[in-house]
């Protein structure tokens, strides 16, 4: 807020001056002879106030201030020659609005049936097959199972979309059929997880067996043509072991991953007696 001596003086002496019998004090008379100066009391100059670089300072749509003096509307609808602005008018009637062209390959159509209708009838919802069984899925590879998983997810989304649409319109039939359909989808997904879990345990067991097998070398790289399975390698290794054992008198090292050799006949008989 800026405060000038003029406004102060008018406020202080305005009512007093109206009275004819009172005059301003003698020391103030020279100031009335000349026009009043308007020097602000504030040390901040008026031109510098609120110069924060905000071009929208003071412009408000709520107070309907309009644009400031230095602002100009730049829009393709505004002609540059200064002629009046022709703004587009909103079409309030939904019937007279122009139709929107939707791409036939839009991805959101996957939330609907192949007919691309808003909702599936209860008859259509009930026309579904059974879930994939574990026996059938065991023959499929990972790519197929992964693809089938996402088919199931999309089917669930579809059923859920139709369910929400039925709830929006009002209570009607179709929930029972939709639940039965979703149940089959969930059974398929459960079977996929079952098969993958089973496959993982099979692989883990095979790996453990291969670690015990001397004919299989797990550290080879098959991509470079190295052979992981060398038949007959077991006999060679056993021969090598027997050679080393003969030198060390049957010492058994547990880290070799082998079954310890049977104890000699004498100690076995003693054990039987005890």
């Amino acid at each position, binding site marked *: 807020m800026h405060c000038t001596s003029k406004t102060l003086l008018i406020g202080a002496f305005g009512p007093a001056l109206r009275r004819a019998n009172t005059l301003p004090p003698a020391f103030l008379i020279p100031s009335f002879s000349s026009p009043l100066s308007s020097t602000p009391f504030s040390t901040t100059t008026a031109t510098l106030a609120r110069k924060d670089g905000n071009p929208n300072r003071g412009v408000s749509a709520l107070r309907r201030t309009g644009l400031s003096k230095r602002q100009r509307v730049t829009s393709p609808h505004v002609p540059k020659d200064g002629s009046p602005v022709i703004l587009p008018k909103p079409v309030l009637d939904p019937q007279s609005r122009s139709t*929107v062209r939707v791409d036939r390959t839009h*991805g*959101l159509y996957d939330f609907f049936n192949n007919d691309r209708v*808003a909702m599936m009838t*209860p008859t259509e919802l009930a026309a579904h097959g059974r879930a994939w069984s574990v026996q059938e899925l065991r023959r499929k590879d990972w790519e197929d199972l992964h693809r089938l998983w996402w088919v199931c*997810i999309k089917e669930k*989304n579809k059923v859920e*979309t139709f369910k*929400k649409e039925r709830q929006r319109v009002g209570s009607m039939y179709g929930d029972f059929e939709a639940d039965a359909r979703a149940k089959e989808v969930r059974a398929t*997904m459960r079977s996929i997880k079952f098969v993958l879990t089973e496959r993982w345990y099979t692989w883990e067991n095979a790996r453990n067996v291969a670690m015990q097998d001397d004919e299989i070398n797990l550290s080879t790289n098959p991509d470079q043509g190295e052979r992981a399975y060398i038949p007959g390698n077991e006999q060679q290794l056993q021969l090598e072991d027997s050679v080393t054992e003969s030198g060390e008198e049957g010492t058994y090292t547990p880290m070799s991953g082998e079954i310890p050799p049977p104890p000699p006949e004498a100690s076995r008989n003693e054990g039987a007696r005890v």
Partner: protein
Amino acid sequence: MALTRATLTPFRVGTKELYLPDITIAFLRTPTSPPSTAKFQVPPWFSKLDLRDYLYHVYAVRTLSVRSYVKQSRVIEGDPLLPRPQPNRWHRPRPTKFMTVELERPFVWPEEPESYDEWNKTEMKESEETQKELAEANGPGKDAIVNKDRRGKMREQAKALLEGNVKWKAGEDRKGSGRLLGR
């Protein structure tokens, strides 16, 4: 594979690859929204980045922006799925989350079916009204229910009797008349 896919996406994808996520979302019809937007109901833990990634990778839909809204559920008494009422078990169900995306290509929902006869909507509505009436007739406020049909019929009957059009006889229209006289 993952690196090329990441570089081709219009946004930066995460490095964690999910192979078998079980996420269900529902596409909702919004008659008042413009066709450049699409509204979904998503799991409560879903984030805007999740939905953008989900729509791009599962449905090949490119989005410009995502808005999120969590709708608080109302306090209810008992489990609505159970057949018997559970009094004094007030609780607030989990809130639902909705997300509105701005689409790169507009999408208009398919038109509504002309009639819902296939869905038996009329029969369902009638059955609901009948069940509501029955529940009210057997409910705690059954004494206060005014049967306006019966009232009108009694008025007609009384008028006919007063005018002399019909002569009243005790228990004429009832089988076993006089049986309840001793009560």
